[in-house]
């Protein structure tokens, strides 16, 4: 009994820590992007201020229950994703509920949030939200193919679907990481992560010049605040998940930060240096090289 209580307390603590980490990560990334632009950029703690200011805005309009539930689902998706991943391998504080949920559950949570958001945004009634939802879901289906296939490759390779065991199988030096033991799967998964992170050229959902700004166009005050919180949690959760899957997890906090940051930098650097795909271009992109890589990874592990 205490065991489960302690786990809950631990999970809440690690959730709190990971939220702050996500916020600071966003702040740092804004700084880095600003430097590429030749600017100083906002202070690192700007995301905190933005969230407080957003929550502090009053709201006078509503578009119905589903509209209110959309961001809730999104945030639930983000938190759920995180809660079933061991953030730090072997640490009781950061292992969350990873023993009780396997990779499939996490994958479900990754996409649960977007589906919930789609429902909520559709309720908003703004044409741009509808268009944005359509774009987002179609792109999501596109990058789900390589991602799922590379996950299947991992499962076949390590004979398990539990993330903890996948991480455990990668311990003992960089040579055991999936990045090296199964490079195809890693490549496919990380390219899928680019799409998941929604930086350029895959930021077709919130394309400010095209459909400002997609699904959250009607969201304001608390709802937008929830979305911002989710952006912090979900980004960190996704990075932790991919770190666990491909970069051999992390034995301690600094290792986790280093690896997730490096992983995120891929998206950011590509994001600042590329324009945006059109929807069908992005779908075609995901269904070409990454899909081939993913299939190769499955073949590779089966031949292994």
């Amino acid at each position: 009994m205490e065991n489960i209580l302690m786990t809950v307390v631990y999970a809440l603590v690690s959730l709190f820590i990971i939220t702050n980490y996500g916020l600071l990560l966003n702040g740092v990334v804004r700084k880095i992007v600003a430097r590429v632009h030749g600017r100083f950029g906002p202070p690192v703690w700007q995301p905190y201020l933005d969230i407080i200011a957003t929550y502090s805005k009053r709201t006078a309009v509503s578009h119905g229950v589903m509209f209110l539930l959309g961001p809730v689902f999104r945030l639930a998706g983000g938190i759920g994703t995180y809660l079933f991943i061991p953030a730090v391998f072997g640490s009781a504080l950061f292992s969350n509920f990873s023993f009780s949920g396997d990779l499939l559950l996490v994958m479900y949570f990754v996409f649960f949030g977007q589906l919930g958001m789609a429902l909520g945004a559709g309720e908003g009634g703004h044409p741009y939200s509808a268009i944005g939802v359509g774009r987002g879901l179609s792109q999501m289906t596109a990058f789900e193919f390589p991602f799922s296939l590379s996950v299947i490759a991992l499962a076949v390779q390590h004979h398990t679907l539990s993330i903890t065991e996948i991480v455990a199988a990668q311990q003992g030096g960089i040579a055991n990481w999936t990045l090296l033991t199964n490079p195809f799967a890693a490549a496919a998964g990380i390219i899928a992560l680019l799409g998941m992170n929604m930086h350029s050229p895959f930021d077709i959902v919130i394309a400010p010049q095209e459909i400002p700004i997609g699904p959250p166009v009607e969201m304001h005050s608390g709802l937008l605040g929830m979305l911002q919180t989710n952006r912090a949690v979900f980004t960190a959760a996704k990075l932790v998940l991919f770190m666990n899957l491909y970069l051999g997890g992390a034995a301690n906090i600094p290792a986790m930060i280093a690896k997730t940051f490096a992983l995120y930098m891929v998206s950011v650097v590509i994001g600042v240096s590329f324009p945006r795909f059109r929807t069908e271009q992005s779908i075609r992109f995901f269904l070409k090289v990454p899909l081939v890589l993913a299939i190769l990874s499955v073949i590779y592990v089966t031949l292994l």
Partner: protein
Amino acid sequence: MNGITSAHHTHTPQAESSLDFDSGKYVKIWQGPQHPGVTGNMSLELYISGSEVVQCKTHVGYLHRGFEKLMERRRFIQNFPLVCRICVPEPDTNEFLYASAIEELAGIEVPERALWLRTLNLELSRLASFLMWIGGQAGAFGLGTVGQWTMAHRDFILDLFEELTGGRVYHMYMLPGGVRADLPHGFDKRLLHVIADAEKLLYEIEKVVFHNAVFKKRARGLGVISQDMVDTYGVVGPNARAAGFARDVRKDSPYAKYSELDFDIITGTGSDAWERARLRYLEMHQSIALIRQIMERMPGTGPFYNRPPNVLHWEIPPGQTYVKAESSRGEYGYYVVTDGSMFPRRVCVRGPSYAHAVTLLEELIVSVDIADIAGLMVSLHTCPPEIER
């Protein structure tokens, strides 16, 4: 399919009748005026099926200030603060045209050096406008980085303007009979320095934008202006040159000192967004070269201002004229009519966007993906204030 308008159906008039907008197959979306992807303050009334535009009506007039009416009740000299505000990104063309029209009608001589200074100003403003434009073009496709760089460099050019004319955006530099001020001391060194930096930036931009696969994917085949559209739609400037017509007011009817500068007209083939972007990029290099030429060939000293007669009761004999110059968007024209009184009888401004942003855009936008509308508008380089004045 998406994003590609082919020449054959763009030339036929829009088939409003064949489309039944009550059938529920089409969604009506107002893009703008409050929309980051619309250039300036105008709006598009779009009928889309899926994400593809089937019909568009442009709505302008959000920036209408009634310049032409206001000019009729201000004296000739009082109009100079007004004219430069007609086109915000590139005011010098307006100043030059109004001044030269007045000089022509009143028969005022302009000293040699003033003409050189005017040419310098015009070319600088062209370069500044182009820099702003390429940032917008890249930003419309989602590459905000280039915009950040170019706007900063445009600002250095604005600093030069401020040093030369005292105004950052609006200069009011050219008056009938010359220009207001001579070059400050050491201006040429600073100018050449800024130009060199801009040139360096352009080479970086070429790497980032024109060697970029995604940009190429987006811009190729977007908004093709076929050869036979150019005359019937009044397409001018880079949009026409990209279609293969060697038309440039600086060559066709030379003004200021352009007849003494050597440059040749850059043309492209098959005017789509990529070709236009490429062409404007080359024209930026060209105007940098022109500015260098001007600085070389400009006479060192000399008078730069012939004082006009007493501008208080300055009556210009009746007459009419049409003067034009090549702005960054194409032929910019002023039609000025005087009736011998102290006020102009009629001043009509012909902005190049007048044809580009209304008739041409309504044709090109058909069957374009809604994602490409911003890119299409920017690639036509539309500027609303000069449409409605």
